C-alpha cells in the first residue's frame, strides 16, 4: 500500500530510565500534514516520545524515524526542519520580546521574522515588553511564536497550552491552527485537555503505562466506537466483531463502550455514538496495553 509519507515512525521504540521504562514497545506511524495529539496520564511516556523525536534523548530499544531520518543531537538537517517546544517553555526572562526574536533569527537559518511579528501583533504582545513582565499565557504565546517562526515542517509541542486560562488557551491554539493553515506544518502535541483534542486534532495517540493503547485518525476512531446499553438481561451475549473497551454494570443493566468492526444491528441494544472524549477516557481507564502497541485489545466480545 502506498502510504502518505510519515512525519514520525516508531517501531518497537523503547526508552529505559534505570529500572523503569519511560516508553515501551511503541509502534506507531503519524502521517504527514496531521495535527496529532498524544494523550495519557503523567508518566505515560508522552514527553519521552517527544524528546526522542526531537533528538534530545536516545532510544534504548527499537527504531524511530522523524521526517524519514533518525533523530540525534547531531542531525543538523532535522534541527532546522523540526521545532520542539519544551513543557517548561524556555525563555530568557530578562530579555525583551524583540531581543528573543533577534536571538531566534541568529540561531535559525529558516527564521521568518514577518511570521513572528504578525503573530505577536495579533496577540497584542508588544515587542518592547520584557519577558518577565508578561503573563504566563503571553509567555507561552511567545515561546510558541519562536517555535513557529522557524517555519519547521514538524512541530513537536509538549503541553503547549498547559496552565493557561481558557482565553489564552484558545488564542494559542488558534495561533497554531493559523500556522498549520498557512504553512501546512505537521504537528505532534501532548495534552491533558481532551476537549482541545476533539477540536483541533485529526490523529490521536493514547498512551497508558508507557505503552500505546490506541493510535489512529480521529475520524476512524469516532466511526468505529459505539456505546451499547441495555436494561436488564445482564448476560446477553454480544454478536461477534465487537470488542469491549469499557463496561459499566448496574443492578438494572449494562452500558458498554465498544469497538465495532461491522455495522451493528441488534434491536435489543440501544446504540449511541460516543464523543471522542468518551472513547479516549474508556481507553485510559482500561489502560491495558496491546501486544503490538497499536490498537487495543484482547478482550473478546462480551467476555469480561
Amino acid at each position: 500500500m502506498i502510504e502518505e509519507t510519515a512525519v514520525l515512525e516508531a517501531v518497537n521504540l523503547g526508552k529505559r530510565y534505570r529500572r523503569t521504562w519511560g516508553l515501551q514497545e511503541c509502534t506507531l506511524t503519524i502521517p504527514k500534514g496531521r495535527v496529532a495529539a498524544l494523550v495519557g496520564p503523567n508518566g505515560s511516556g508522552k514527553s519521552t516520545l517527544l524528546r526522542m523525536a526531537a533528538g534530545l534523548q536516545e532510544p534504548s530499544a527499537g527504531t524511530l524515524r522523524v521526517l524519514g531520518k533518525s533523530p540525534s543531537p547531531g542531525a543538523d538537517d532535522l534541527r532546522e526542519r523540526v521545532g520542539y517546544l519544551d513543557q517548561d517553555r524556555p525563555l530568557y526572562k530578562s530579555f525583551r520580546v524583540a531581543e528573543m526574536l533577534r536571538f531566534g533569527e541568529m540561531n535559525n537559518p529558516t527564521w521568518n521574522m514577518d511570521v513572528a511579528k504578525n503573530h505577536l501583533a495579533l496577540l497584542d504582545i508588544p515587542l518592547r515588553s520584557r519577558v518577565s513582565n508578561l503573563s504566563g499565557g503571553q509567555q507561552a504565546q511567545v515561546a510558541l511564536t519562536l517555535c513557529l517562526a522557524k517555519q519547521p515542517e514538524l512541530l513537536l509541542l509538549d503541553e503547549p497550552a498547559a496552565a493557561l486560562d481558557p482565553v489564552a488557551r484558545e488564542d494559542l491554539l488558534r495561533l497554531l491552527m493559523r500556522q498549520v493553515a498557512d504553512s501546512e506544518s505537521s504537528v505532534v502535541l501532548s495534552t491533558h485537555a481532551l476537549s482541545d483534542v476533539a477540536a483541533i486534532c485529526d490523529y490521536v495517540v493514547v498512551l497508558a503505562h508507557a505503552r500505546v493503547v490506541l493510535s489512529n485518525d480521529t475520524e476512524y476512531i469516532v466511526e468505529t466506537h459505539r456505546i451499547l446499553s441495555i436494561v436488564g438481561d445482564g448476560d446477553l451475549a454480544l454478536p461477534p466483531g465487537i470488542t469491549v473497551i469499557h463496561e459499566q454494570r448496574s443492578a438494572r443493566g449494562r452500558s458498554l463502550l465498544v469497538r465495532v468492526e461491522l455495522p451493528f444491528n441488534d434491536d435489543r441494544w440501544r446504540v449511541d455514538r460516543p464523543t471522542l472524549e468518551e472513547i479516549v477516557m474508556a481507553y485510559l481507564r482500561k489502560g491495558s496495553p496491546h501486544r503490538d502497541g497499536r490498537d487495543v485489545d484482547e478482550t473478546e466480545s462480551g467476555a469480561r
Partner: protein
Amino acid sequence: MSQRPSLTFRLDPQSGLAPYRQLVDQVRHAVRTGLLRDGDQLPSVRDVVTQITINPNTVHRAYRELEHQGIAEGRAGLGTFITLHLSVAPDATEHGTFEQALHDLVINARRAGIDEETIRELMRTALRQNGNVRS
C-alpha cells in the same frame, strides 16, 4: 463577486458527530434556511480557523464533502462557493412544514407536562429507530 455571507460555524463537542460533518450540516442548514444562496462564498479556511478553534484540515475536508454533494464548488485561487443545482435545491416548503409540525409537537408535549430532557430523549429514539439515514 457576491458578498460574503454571515455564516458562523460552531462545534458541539457533545454531538458525537465528526467535526467535519458538523460543518457540512451547518452549511446544508444555512442553505435550506436561505442564509446561504447560490453563488455565495464560504468563509476561507484561514477565516474559519481564526473564527473558531478548529483544524484547517477539517475545514478542507468539509468543503470537499460539500463539493462532492454538489452544494459547493471550489474555484482555484478564489475560494469555495455555493452552487445550487436543481437536484439539491432545498424544498423550503417541506422544510417549513416540518418545522411547524415539530413546533406544535413541542408545545403539546409541554402542555402534557413532558420535560425537555424527555422530549430530547424521545426525539433521539425516533431518529434512531428510523435507521441511520444520513442527510
